[in-house]
């Protein structure tokens, strides 16, 4: 074999007791597109951050053309010809394309920037690689796809030879994605080495030459793309089917409480991110919506709970049409909501536990009425803190001083204690330790057994397969699979999540 352009050898990176990357080897060749696959937390980002100098590996070496190098900082990485395009752009919207590309290293004579020269560079690179951006337009006026090309131009302007693209298509529309693939194929044709981090098997199959799969920090496969099937890849990514038998019995559903029909939702940029989603949730069942984060779940939940106006479709809670209505009305219709953004939406960190709980009871005689009372709020808070095992020094403790688990239990105390008919919870155990996770899940099961219709939106496979009675799989804003009659195994849902059925 010829010498690889870049070789990572035995890279190890640990964070405390956890090994994020465990002696991983990776060889990247010039003129090839190398896909890096793996679940969230499989170690892809950690590995790439080691390569880009954002993290220092505990052991292992990085070689470029056979010469060992030390990548101590992103600046050093760029000098070595390693460029990285992050998922979130780092551009200045008010500056022009050329100004952004030249930012920090403008061609100048004395104190004056040679704008013409900067523009000429962008024009040349843009033509050479078929990127098609006008160096003089302002970044804020560009589409996301064009902004991404500016981000790539910034790397190219540094003469990079190795380009790392972190989930580049996550922010693109299908048409932009097509175009983007042509561009990166062009890079490879010109001798660049491209590392493509992705979740989508179908995309990887279309552009990549080689593929490496990481799982739990280890490299579990490396081969040419022609030599593996999508099914094999899906199994490699999520691991062999390990049948975990759930101990939670399935519920006995009653009448329909939440029904979603033909829901289309646009994101903040006006792109349709949820397409024609329909499903129902009945009293006494947990319906799990499972998908890799960023496939429209956040926007879907916002549309159901009144935080975002859907483009079209209907949301019926307890027989009341609530699509496009304010959260106040949606709540009165019978919704309890455990939000994904716990600290931003689910609680006020500078408020006490007591205030955070009783704010959900303001419209009840328990703390409301003509005048509220601190004594009654305190009594309510103390009662619910015991019921939901919220461990705080006192009801007066500020919520931001709680651990993640206790903060989430406080949110559950507020939302579930009023026995709402419909409970929508998004990523309810994100960032929680094992004990808190178990407690939260059993609360949801308990709410179901008391007759609530529970919609559980999660990216945790085991969460959904353990407690959901029915499982829907969401991918790119569509429901792509449904498991009605049984709790699916991890392998079954895993394949559907990664688009392996395609």
């Amino acid at each position, binding site marked *: 074999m010829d010498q690889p352009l870049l070789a990572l050898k035995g890279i190890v990176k640990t964070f405390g007791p956890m090994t994020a990357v465990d002696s991983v080897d990776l060889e990247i060749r010039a003129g090839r597109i190398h896909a890096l696959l793996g679940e969230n937390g499989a170690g892809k980002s950690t590995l790439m951050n080691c390569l880009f100098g954002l993290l220092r590996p505990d052991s292992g070496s990085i070689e470029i053309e056979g010469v060992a190098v030390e990548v101590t900082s992103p600046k050093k990485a760029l000098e070595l010809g390693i460029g990285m395009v992050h998922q979130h752009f780092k551009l200045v919207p008010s500056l022009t394309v050329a100004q952004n590309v030249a930012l920090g290293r403008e061609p100048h004579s004395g104190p004056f920037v040679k704008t013409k020269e900067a523009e000429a560079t962008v024009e040349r690179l843009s033509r050479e690689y078929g990127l098609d951006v006008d160096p003089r337009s302002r970044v804020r006026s560009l589409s996301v796809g064009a902004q991404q090309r500016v981000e790539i131009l910034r790397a190219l302007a540094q003469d990079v030879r190795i380009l790392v693209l972190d989930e580049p298509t996550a922010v693109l529309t299908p048409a932009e994605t097509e175009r983007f693939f042509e561009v990166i194929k062009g890079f490879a044709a010109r001798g660049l080495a491209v590392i493509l981090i992705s979740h989508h098997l179908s995309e990887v199959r279309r552009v990549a030459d080689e593929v490496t799969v990481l799982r739990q920090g280890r490299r579990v496969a490396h081969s040419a793309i022609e030599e593996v099937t999508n099914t094999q890849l899906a199994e490699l990514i999520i691991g062999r089917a390990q049948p975990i038998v759930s101990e939670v019995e399935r519920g006995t559903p009653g009448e329909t409480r939440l029904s979603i029909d033909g829901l289309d939702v646009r994101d903040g940029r006006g792109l349709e991110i949820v397409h024609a989603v329909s499903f129902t949730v009945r009293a006494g069942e947990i319906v799990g919506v499972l998908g890799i984060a960023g496939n429209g779940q956040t926007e879907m939940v916002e549309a159901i709970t009144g935080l975002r106006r859907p483009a079209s479709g209907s949301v019926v809670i307890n027989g009341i049409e609530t699509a496009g209505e304010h959260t106040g009305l949606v709540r009165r219709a019978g919704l309890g909501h455990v939000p994904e953004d716990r600290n931003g939406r689910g609680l006020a960190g500078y408020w006490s536990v007591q205030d955070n709980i009783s704010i959900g009871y303001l419209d009840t005689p328990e703390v409301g009425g003509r*005048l509220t009372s601190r004594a009654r709020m305190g009594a309510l808070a103390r009662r619910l803190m015991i019921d939901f095992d919220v461990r705080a020094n006192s009801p007066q403790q500020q919520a931001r001083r709680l651990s993640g688990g206790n903060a989430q239990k406080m949110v559950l105390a507020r939302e579930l204690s009023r026995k709402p008919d419909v409970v929508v919870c998004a990523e309810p155990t994100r960032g929680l330790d094992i004990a808190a996770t178990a407690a939260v899940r059993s609360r949801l099961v308990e709410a179901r057994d008391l007759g609530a219709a529970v919609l559980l939106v999660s990216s945790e496979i085991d969460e959904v397969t353990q407690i959901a009675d029915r499982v829907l799989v969401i991918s790119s804003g569509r429901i792509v699979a449904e498991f009605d009659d049984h709790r699916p195994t991890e392998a079954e849902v895993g394949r559907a999540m990664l688009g392996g059925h395609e």
Partner: protein
Amino acid sequence: MTEPQDSETATAARSFPGLVATARRVVPLGLFQSMVAIVLGIVICFVIMLFATADPLVAFQAFTLGTFRNAYSIGSMIAIASILAVTAFASTVAFRAGAFNIGTEGQLVLGGLTAAIIAEKLPGPGGLVQVIALLGAMAAGALWIAIPTVLRVRYRTNEILTTLMANYIAADLALFLVNQYFRDKGSGAVETPPLDESRWLLQILPPSAANIGVVVALVLAGVLWLWFDRTRAGKRAEVSGLQPAFAEYLGIHSVSYLRNSMLISGALAGLGGGLAILGISHAYIDGFSPQYGFLGITVALIGRLRPVGVLVSALLYASLITGATAMQAVSDVPYSLVFVLQGILILLITSQRIGGRRTA
């Protein structure tokens, strides 16, 4: 726009649109921080006196205790304190709802002018005219903040800038209106004709300026305490300012609370102006306000945005203002030390906790 920028500036610039869209949260000082600020502020004033005068102890004694030398200056102190409390309540209402109304001074000036005009022109029994004049002052203050409010609520325009700029417009507008239409032709100063005594607020410690405005301040304190601590609307207004995303999630129309809080804040500042005119200066005089509006911001923050705290800090601050007058008489330290103190306090307060933070 061609100077080099590091990537951090670039990131900050990228996130700027979000900053405008969310409310700023004012986290009230702790009791200890608040006391540290005032003590430290007074100590620094003393250090300045060491350099400014040959006899700093005399000056310092007059500054801190001069108010209490006789009943007259205690009366002045009470009169000033009641105005400061009202303008500080105006700031409190806005700050607690997440709106930085820095324009209380302008709202106060226009409120004062409105009260002066109504009190002068409207015939009728004194008490009734006084009430109408004060209501007019509130309306003027609310009207003046209505422009920044609409800009903030509808176009997410930063209200710090708009309310601050509105102060200057208000000052010049008042000057123009008085000069053009309402000026006392017999006077050399820019002022409206002196008000008839029936229009004066009832004095409680004659001949000092202390008047029943202090009752207004006390009643307001009670009402605001009820509103913030005992009503649902107050709780909802507070969470709307503290964390709009949380408020919306809870089903609260946070924008309405923001809007109403701003309007109430403007009305209270206008009321402060009316009280100052009817209670102290008894005519609209250019410069009748020794920056009651701006001082009210400091008083509100030192008072930790709580009604009782504001009352205490208004008394304290007013005693320093009256003391500064006495100090000017007995030593060569000028009255403007008060403004030095204000600057120091603002620096101390902001360096401790006031954040222009975005919600996550």
